[in-house]
């Protein structure tokens, strides 16, 4: 799970996650204040159609409601939307279209739009009341865009300040060399830096009793998810060197097949049966979730504590690395096949094409995006421009893919693969940019994945147990068969690393992709199985690794 994560960036990523939590806290605190003040629709409304909740200080002074109905000539509150705002400030019907935009109490703009609506039909309304509000804001207003939010209490302000202090403190403590040395000494750095604390942090922040990340805030930051999926795909694709496939070390092919095929078949069979019985025989689409779990089960992290690169046999390390790369390739292919052949149907996907056509669409789109990225990178100059183009390419590719219900990870993997294997001087700068930003983006992605993780369903836990068991059994069986077939030519250390490998970031990306592509209750079970399975697996591998390390130390002492 350590793949590509820059340890240096950990403190900042902590800060990012905490910031998100802080924002969520502020949002929820204000939402609670809103609730305490009563729902907006019930608030007294001035004759101008402006809610009384808008009459706080500053803006209130600037925009105190009109005293006389004649000033406006509009109807009172009857024009306000009928829908009841939810606890976190959302209104039902949000995002239903341009015409019926959500009535969000936190949005001053909408209040202004409401003024438009109210005035528009009245005889006294001015001729030019045609312009929809609000405009863009290049320079910041003094609290003008959220002036219907209640005035903050001193407690809120203190909390905000303390949280800011805490961010810096955590970043400082996390990045301090002594803390790093302590982690190394305790050998906990792998678990800690793998990012699982960020998943847990997201999970806690999302929990209703904590109430830090509300639905509305999650919706607001949801565009980061496809971006994160795309980033993981592009980074992995970029590192995939096509030349490695041409001249593999001995036994790579059969090692790959054995440690991939057996976990795949076992996981697919057991999890498929579980899904089948949990959903009833009338749910053939459970097959796709079983396939997604099977695809996730084949994956291993790009580094393992059981095969440390410093002291292990170089051939063994090389072979393991190749096998892991091939696993990633297989998983990407598997995900694209599942997404193409098990697409949701109906109005959500306007184009109705056969599964194979979707494969062609995926590949063609990825190739075109790669060409765009390649040509754009060829004309950039400075480091800042490279960063901009990388962000733009990932955002464009992942957004487009997700919009078309194609896995963003797959599309970006292909883009990254083509960029990484095409000739040109862009690769050095691209590699540097990816390395610089990869860690924090990855950790923020895990934080959001944790926030979208629903733990409640028993089915998810059952799948988790089945997933962990079948994956471990499949890998062990695969290694056993490998030992038998190669007559112990593959070193013990390598076999142990293959059998007890941690799961990589791609496995979690696949689970999140499932939720992105096939939203529904089953995809939340898949997330529980894969994310929970990754955590369980990681802890188990760490325990084994620490145990073996202890034995080695004792042997050394003897």
């Amino acid at each position, binding site marked *: 799970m350590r793949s590509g994560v820059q340890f240096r*960036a950990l403190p900042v990523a902590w*800060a990012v996650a905490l910031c998100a939590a802080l*924002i969520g806290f*502020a949002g929820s605190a*204000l939402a609670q204040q809103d609730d305490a003040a009563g729902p907006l629709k019930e608030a007294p409304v001035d004759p101008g*159609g402006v809610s009384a909740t*808008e009459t706080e*200080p*500053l*803006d*209130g*002074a*600037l*925009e105190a409601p*009109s005293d006389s109905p004649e*000033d*406006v000539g509009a109807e009172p509150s009857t024009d306000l939307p009928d829908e009841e705002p939810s606890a976190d400030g959302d209104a039902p019907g949000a*995002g239903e*279209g*341009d015409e019926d*935009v959500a009535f969000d109490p936190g949005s*001053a*703009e909408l209040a202004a739009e409401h*003024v438009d609506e109210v*005035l528009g039909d009245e005889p006294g309304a*001015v001729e*030019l009341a045609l*312009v929809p*509000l*609000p*405009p863009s*804001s*290049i*320079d*910041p207003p003094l*609290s*003008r865009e959220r002036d219907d*939010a209640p*005035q903050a209490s001193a407690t809120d*302000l203190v909390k*905000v300040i303390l949280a800011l202090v805490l*961010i810096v403190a955590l*970043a*400082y403590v996390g990045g301090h060399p002594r803390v790093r040395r302590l982690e190394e000494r305790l050998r906990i750095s792998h678990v800690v830096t793998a990012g699982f604390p960020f998943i847990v942090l997201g999970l806690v922040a999302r929990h209703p009793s904590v109430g830090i990340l509300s639905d509305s805030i999650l919706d607001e930051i949801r*565009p980061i998810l496809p971006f994160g999926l795309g980033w993981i795909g592009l980074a992995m694709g970029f590192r995939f060197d096509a030349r490695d496939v041409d001249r593999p070390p001995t036994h790579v092919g059969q090692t790959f097949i054995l440690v991939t095929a057996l976990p795949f078949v076992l996981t697919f069979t057991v999890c498929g049966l579980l899904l089948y019985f949990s959903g009833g025989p009338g749910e053939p689409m459970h097959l796709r979730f079983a396939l997604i779990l099977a695809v996730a089960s084949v994956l291993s992290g790009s580094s393992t504590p059981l095969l440390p690169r410093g002291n292990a046999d170089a051939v063994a390390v090389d072979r393991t690395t190749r096998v892991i790369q091939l696993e990633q390739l297989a998983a990407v292919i598997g995900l694209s096949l599942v997404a193409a052949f098990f697409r949701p149907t109906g109005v959500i996907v*306007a184009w109705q094409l056969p599964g194979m056509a979707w494969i062609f669409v995926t590949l063609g789109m990825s190739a075109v995006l790669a060409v*765009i990225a390649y*040509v*754009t990178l060829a*004309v950039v100059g400075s480091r*800042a*421009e490279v*960063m*901009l*183009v990388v962000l733009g390419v990932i*955002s464009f590719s992942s*957004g487009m893919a*997700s*919009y078309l219900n194609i896995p963003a990870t797959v599309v970006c993997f292909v883009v990254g693969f083509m960029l990484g294997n095409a000739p040109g001087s862009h690769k050095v700068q691209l590699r540097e940019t990816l390395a610089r930003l990869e860690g924090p983006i990855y950790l923020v992605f895990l934080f959001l994945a944790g926030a979208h993780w629903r733990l409640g369903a028993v089915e998810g836990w059952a799948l988790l147990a089945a997933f962990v068991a079948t994956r471990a059994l499949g890998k062990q069986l695969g290694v056993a068969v490998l030992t038998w077939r190669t007559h112990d030519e593959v070193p013990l250390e390598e076999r142990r690393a293959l059998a007890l490998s941690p799961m990589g970031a791609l496995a979690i990306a696949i689970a999140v992709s499932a939720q*992105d592509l096939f939203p529904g209750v089953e995809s939340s079970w898949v997330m529980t199985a894969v994310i929970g399975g990754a955590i369980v697996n990681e802890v188990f591998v760490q325990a084994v690794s620490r145990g073996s390390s202890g034995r080695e130390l004792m042997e050394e002492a003897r």
Partner: protein
Amino acid sequence: MRLLLFVFLAGMLHAAESFAPDRVVRSFPALTTFTLGYLLLSAYLAGAIFKKLGMPKLTGYLATGILAGPYGLGLVSKATVEDLHIVNGVAIALIALTAGTEMHFKSLRPLFRSIAFISLIAIVGTALLLAGAIYGMRDWLPFLGELTQYQLIAVSLVLGVTIVAQSPAVVVALRDETDADGPMSRTVLAVVVIGDLMVILLFAVVSAIARGSLGVGADVIETARALSWEIFGSVALGFLVGGLFALYFTYVKASGALFMVTVCFVVAEVGARVHLDPLLVTLTAGILIRNATSTGEALHTEIEAASLPVYVAFFSVAGASIHLDALISIGGVATALVVVRAIGLLSGSQVATRLAGAPEVVRKYAGFGLLPQAGLALALAILFTRAFPDFGDGASALVFGIVAINELVAPVLFRIALTRSGEAGARGRPAEAEIAAEEPSAAAAA
């Protein structure tokens, strides 16, 4: 090649949107990501094309937004533009932080007189001139039709103050883009920042008077209290944020750009919710770091690394939000007021710099830096709508039209001014003002 890519990207966006047209008109997370990527790439390419044509890159970013936006080709829907406004908060805070780190008091000391005179004469004078022009053009402004003389004067004053607002964002972005430094650009930056605060204060005062003239109650004490909280509270938080930045860049250092963007995001989101001004918070932080700590340079370097994607996203989203429909409906009067504003600011800064004895380069070109205009005027227009619901919409349309023209024209003029003044590309060279300031003491020592 860039043009080809620019067109191709638009084609891809359009083609993909045809997949599920119903998703385009509403808020859809993947579409937000997709559109952001499109704007980043297209605006970057357009910026390069505009630069080749001798125009500011920033205008290219804005033009991309306008072209793709809901009032242009419609590739980016209103709902998506709304979703993308999340970029604004970070950008504003980051731009203000940049402005703060540029305000080195030691370098600005010789220019204090010019800054004060321009702020007072050019800004206040132009606000009065604009108020007079609006009063004079009342027959072409139907929303003012039913007001009495006294009310008309008061409302004209409020509109005059609203329309005179400048744009620190554009000034900072153009300074960065052209690598400009020198007495003129420093003066302009200081004036637009101070002008921003002055306009907000003036707006509060004149709108309270206007509301009184219309028989609408205005609580003066409450206004003063809220303004105090907003200004002094923001400054106090700015000191804290500045201290945190200084600590971070002294002891942690790693991934400074990301940390900075994160803190800006927090300040923008949380600050607005607790009625503090993100601009003022990060501006104060920047000034503090620049003038009271040794980490100013480190912070500035990190800002430069992070600023390009933020600027591109910010200005292209701003372009997509420009209400071209407003410009069409009220174009004539808006154009006239743009001309009046330009005359007022240019002549006002000429007079002010002469009185202050400013260097020649400041006298000749500083006025052009006051012309760019953007969000503050728009935000005040929203407040105007709420404060005067009877005719606020008409006034908003007028302000939107004026801002649209200024957004397109003023950056070009300011870029020309930066180039002609010789300050473009001068960053890193010893500033003339500093040399001039040091000359007398050096002569005395000799």
